[in-house]
């Protein structure tokens, strides 16, 4: 009888150890998403996305925050800040100067962008983190298409 209980306990302990190891690998240490390979949840022009946030930031936030969005428009500025490259669709002007959609590019998509002339028509996808009162912010951006 004792042997049987011992066996059951041993099996349960084994299952527990396996579950803990799997949990550590696949849950606690799960990697960040591969943003470059993610398909866009939405595709629209830069002006439409920006205007939706300006008109009703709460409603637009519920729709787009935390989503992969592809935007198309003229990239007015390409900025290099602290080793990061940002594509800027300038669409308005306000307290902080330019306003629009700012996309922090993935490292491997930064180089091609720096070579583009200002005002190039591009399609860029990125992970929307929200609207900060001046700009719609997108991270992990990748260049999908350039019309130059």
């Amino acid at each position, binding site marked *: 009888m004792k042997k049987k209980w011992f066996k059951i306990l041993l099996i349960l302990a084994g299952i527990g150890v396996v579950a803990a190891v799997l949990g550590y690998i696949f849950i606690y*240490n*799960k990697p960040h*998403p591969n943003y470059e390979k993610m398909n866009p949840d939405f595709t629209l022009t830069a002006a439409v996305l920006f205007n939706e946030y300006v008109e009703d930031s709460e409603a637009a936030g519920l729709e787009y925050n*935390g989503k992969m969005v592809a935007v198309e428009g003229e990239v007015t500025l390409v900025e290099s800040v*602290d080793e990061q490259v940002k594509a800027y669709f300038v669409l308005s002007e306000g307290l902080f100067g330019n306003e629009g959609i700012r996309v922090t590019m993935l490292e491997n998509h930064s180089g091609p962008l720096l070579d583009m002339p200002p005002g190039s028509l591009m399609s860029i996808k990125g992970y929307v*983190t*929200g609207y*900060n009162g*001046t700009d719609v*912010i997108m991270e992990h951006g990748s260049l999908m298409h350039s019309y130059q």
Partner: protein
Amino acid sequence: MKKIIGILTILLIFSYHQEVQAQRYVTKDGRITFFSEAPAENIEAFNNQVNSALDIGSGDFIFRVLMKSFQFEKALMQEHFNENYIESHKHPNATFSGKVTNLEAIDFGTPGTYNAVVSGDLTIKGITKSITEEGMFEVNADGTIHGQATFMIAIADFDIKIPRAVINNIAEEIEIKVDVKLSPLNN
């Protein structure tokens, strides 16, 4: 005569506008880092998309921080931060609106390093608390101003609840580091 008065008025308005603009220093690339030191693990996250504006005439100083822009080493921590603790879908921005209270001790026209005292309202997760913190302004010869500050906040003050299961993983007080390189708005 009317024409001359009209031209003078336009010039006056234009020069006033220029002066007001020159007093305002801004950045959209400010950096905020937070650090939690707890028995089980240390957690660090950064956000380098911080909007900040300083009016050196009035001392008005504002920040606006998108919570979803905080980057963590571990994806799971980032998920928990946004979904469980900060609820960034409900409260996407944190803000600070305040003033530099010792303006007389800072000469923004002369390069150098100056101690600063900043006082105002910090809003996180929809809850506003008054804070007063010390920091530093470095006025540079190229016309930029570099502001830095380090301070602690108690997460309970902002209704951030930590489940018992992870009580040893998250500190009750978090260290916040602010680093902004402000440029004149008319540049």
